[in-house]
């Protein structure tokens, strides 16, 4: 398991550099731009996409069969992906909060960390939560359609809360504070579903 986590962390770091650079640009826009929260939330969506990219990458060089021959269970293969995704998401939330603090101190932007996280957490988790079970069951090739559906859904959600981009103080806080918990619960459910589905997949 330790080896699988090492592999995913390193693989993500090596292959998603462009994504990380793009996120830095968005973070800078978040600090200095007018629609600060929109850019910061967008980094969360981008980070949420990386487990799916890793899955495609793995399959392109035959990793699933290689891993199936190693002394690791399929549940461990799935869990490593979910854990590493959480690691990068938490890292991104931390950086976003830092960006909010910097934006607040430099530009006097409103500081709404709680409201921001209540959107950022479920938003980051939504793409892996929806896509990973399908990718683990059907593989990256057939899962591409799901990718498009997920992105459309996420963009739809962002559009629906479009006002948020301007000012988070407009968001009904009480309802949204439940969102991270619901997101986390659904993420855990997706994790278990992926394990169940991957055990049934032929490699």
């Amino acid at each position, binding site marked *: 398991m330790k080896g*699988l986590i090492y592999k995913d962390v390193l693989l993500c770091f090596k292959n998603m550099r462009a994504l990380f650079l793009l996120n830095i640009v968005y973070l800078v826009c978040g600090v200095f731009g007018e629609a600060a929260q929109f850019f910061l939330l967008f980094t969360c969506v981008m980070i949420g996409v990386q487990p799916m990219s890793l899955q495609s990458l793995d399959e392109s060089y*035959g990793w699933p069969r290689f891993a*199936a021959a190693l*002394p690791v269970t399929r549940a461990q293969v799935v869990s490593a992906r979910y854990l590493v995704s959480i690691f990068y998401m938490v890292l991104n939330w931390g950086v976003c909060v830092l960006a909010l603090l910097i934006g607040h101190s430099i530009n006097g932007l409103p500081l709404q960390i709680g409201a921001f996280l209540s959107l950022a957490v479920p938003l980051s988790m939504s793409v892996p939560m929806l896509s990973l079970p399908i990718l683990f069951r059907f593989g990256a090739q057939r899962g591409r359609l799901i990718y498009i559906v997920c992105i459309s859904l996420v963009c739809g959600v962002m559009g629906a809360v479009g006002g948020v981009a301007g000012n988070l103080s407009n968001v009904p806080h009480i309802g949204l504070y439940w969102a991270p918990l619901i997101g986390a619960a659904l993420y855990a459910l997706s994790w278990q579903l992926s394990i169940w589905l991957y055990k049934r997949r*032929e*490699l």
Partner: protein
Amino acid sequence: MNALEIRGLTRKFKDFTLGPLDLTLPGGCVLGLIGENGAGKTTLLRLILQMLKKDGGSVRVLGRDEKELDGIREDLGVVPDATGLPLSFNALEMDRMLAGIHKAWDEEKFFSLIKAFDLPEKKPFKDYSRGMRQKMCIAAALSHDPKLLLLDEPTGGLDPLARDQVMEMLEDYTRSEERSVLISSHIVSDLERLCDYVAFLHKGRLLLVEEKDRLQEELALFLGTAEELDALPKGAVQGVKHTPYGERALVRRDRMPEGAALSSVGVEEMFLLLTKEGEKR
């Protein structure tokens, strides 16, 4: 203890059926699986490793049944058909990854194999040639002291020198009586050199599984005309190839008339002649 016991193993696909197969690999032995492309060699290895679901039969690996396979994966060394190496990794990172996966990972052995194969440690695998990646897979499979090696075309893509090197390593590995190897290949000369047993797989069915030496004692090559071939006793001829110079037949020595001119036959020709016979049937 048998390293591998396969009984009635079957898997059906739309246009291909593997089995039913019966195959035993005694502990401490090397079994070479010979078959043309698409014969089912890779499918068999995937069934053994439970990458595919079987439709029938049973597989016991190192004395354990299918349900216990996860518990003995540590004792298996596998070189899969597509190498599966993370292409952005290098040998140093591969070592760290596998050290976190195998309990018995032997870093010293891994790097000694890397050195023996002359593989660069810091070059990413994407810049390796196919043969280099294959060598890396072999080094990884040998570096945790597995009891059973499952090798799918391990010398495919290797030049003659590298093939010889791999064969030497495998010969060295099999010196211990506890270690067994199932190796599939269509480079029959490699298998001939290494194997105690050979299994011929043709169109999803096992034509024979036999000790290599016994096979060479039992079977022989008969060269003659079509008339001479027709005159041979029933059951003597196992396979025939028609050539412009006459008939080349694989025959059973014990069914041949005394004094018949026979010559010894190599494993490759045995396979070719047997599959020809299979097609005639």
